[in-house]
């Protein structure tokens, strides 16, 4: 394993992310913050939503921001670099086994997703205050869940980025990411689906459910949520599954 080379690729990604910082910020935070503003502030102030909804919304928004950032950070460059610009060839020819190039992408994407997740908390708090009640009673569990969510986002990005055609990027958003977000228990807890028993079972195949519920369990445990054990197991399984799929797809794209 050539750590020097791996680290240099990580520095390259950090350098590019820093260069695109402003665009990244807009891309990552604009939509969730508008959502927070409308649902957490406008709807609550006007009485259509109860005050408690503010706190309920926070973990969901954090999950969306993380998943969106991770997927975007890994998938979009890969789609372009494999199919159009071939930019990645420089790194495929670097003196390192090619799967480390994919692992590096996952690591860089996870770090970005983590950053996005951690930035959302203070930003949402600023918009929503007063009235947000969240706790960090178990920082270790919170850290575990957050890292697993970040990895899920980046591994998902790898799997999508190496499977989707450039011409199908729009479809990827409308067919994969949007349904995932709406059926991902982001804007409501899983228990809110009690009256829709079939749907409640079906959404369990959506990894975002575990991300939102896991963050809910650690940030706002006063609301009903899935058990933490189920969340940790499910996220780990999804992470490994997506990573394996992603690496296989990456290999088939990288070598003809």
């Amino acid at each position, binding site marked *: 394993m050539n750590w020097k*080379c791996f680290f240099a690729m990580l520095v*390259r990604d950090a350098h590019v992310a820093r260069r695109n910082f402003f665009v990244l910020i807009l891309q990552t935070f604009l939509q969730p913050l508008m959502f927070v503003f409308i649902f957490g502030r406008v709807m609550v102030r006007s009485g259509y939503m109860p005050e408690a909804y503010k706190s309920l919304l926070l973990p969901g928004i954090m999950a969306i921001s993380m998943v969106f950032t991770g997927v975007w950070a890994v998938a979009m460059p890969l789609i372009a670099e494999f199919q159009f610009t*071939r930019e*990645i060839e*420089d790194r495929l020819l670097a*003196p*390192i086994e090619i799967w480390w190039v994919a692992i590096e992408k996952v690591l860089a994407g996870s770090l970005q997703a983590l950053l996005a997740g951690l930035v959302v908390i203070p930003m949402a708090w600023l918009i929503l205050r007063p009235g947000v009640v969240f706790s960090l009673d178990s920082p270790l569990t919170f850290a575990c869940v957050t890292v697993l969510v970040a990895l899920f986002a980046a591994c998902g990005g790898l799997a999508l980025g190496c499977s989707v055609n450039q011409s199908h990027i729009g479809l990827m958003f409308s067919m994969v990411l949007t349904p995932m977000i709406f059926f991902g228990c982001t804007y409501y807890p899983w228990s809110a689906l009690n009256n829709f028993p079939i749907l409640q079972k079906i959404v369990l195949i959506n990894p975002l459910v575990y991300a939102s519920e896991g963050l809910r369990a650690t940030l706002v445990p006063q609301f009903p949520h899935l058990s933490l054990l189920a969340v940790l197991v499910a996220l780990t399984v999804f992470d490994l599954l997506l990573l394996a799929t992603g690496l296989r797809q990456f290999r088939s794209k990288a*070598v*003809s």
Partner: protein
Amino acid sequence: MVGIRTQDLRKVYTSSPPFAAGGGFGGSASAGKRGKQPKTEIVALSGLTLEISSGEVFGLLGPNGAGKSTTVGILTTRVRPTGGQAWIGQHEVWKEQVPVKRLIGVVAQRPNLDFSLTAREILLFHGAYFGLDSVQRTKRAGELLERFKLSDRADQMVRGFSGGMMQRLSIARAMMHDPKVLFLDEPSAGLDPQTRLLLWEIIREYNESGKTILLTTHNMEEADALCHRLVIIDHGRAIALGTPAKLKSSVPGGFLLRLRFGRQSPDLLEQLRALNGVREVRANDQNGADLYADRGGSLIRDIATLASAGNVDLQDVHISEPSLENLFLHHTGRSLRE
């Protein structure tokens, strides 16, 4: 010192070949319609054996789809061979990829620069991937930018670069870690004549420092000017190998006269064969003939006389002097540019 060897290299694509491999079709498989038909198999290489000495400038010459880029792809770890073996120095390419990648520098046919970086950053990061320390990287990047006449644009994003500038930067990048073997896939395609000359000079200079260079081209002039030896490949097979001079002298007579008549006349072709200085006559399409001879223009009068005596209309004559192009035509019956 590091040379290159391949042993009975074969490659069959079951999906369309990658960009770099030109999307060409070799072998007998047909392109077929897309859809429910079984997977189309495209034979890109069928048993290529080469031995390239260290310190040599070696050329792969052939038309589009001959298997040039696939050969480069296999030798640079980017294409998995279907059969056979390849070595860079002592390392078998498919099995020891990392040591191989340390030894080689690669310039792909299509520009594949990192568009998120400036020209200088591209060189610096490339150096970092190969473990150069920051002092070495900065020094080497500066030298290369100077050598390739890119210093004034060094700190601009490469997105706005012209094709020629991108090509120069690609080559500079490939040289950044001072590889023992340099692969150049169609290095001067799309370059203006001035830049091409600069490039040739740099390639010669790099070779003089003891490096092995493998380049692909379908430009005869380039092969002639740069290569110590070259192989002509077609349909994934080597059809001729040697120094440019030796290859050219292997064409019967050297001169090629491509003739077109109003109608086909076997009698006329027989008479042409008997002309003084004519070595070989081959009918090409319906009404044409390729005539190999040891003289050129001075044959025209005799050909015209024979044609009019046989009541055949001589419509077109094209004379070419001894060249690799003729050699290719002689071996394949097709022009390199077809």
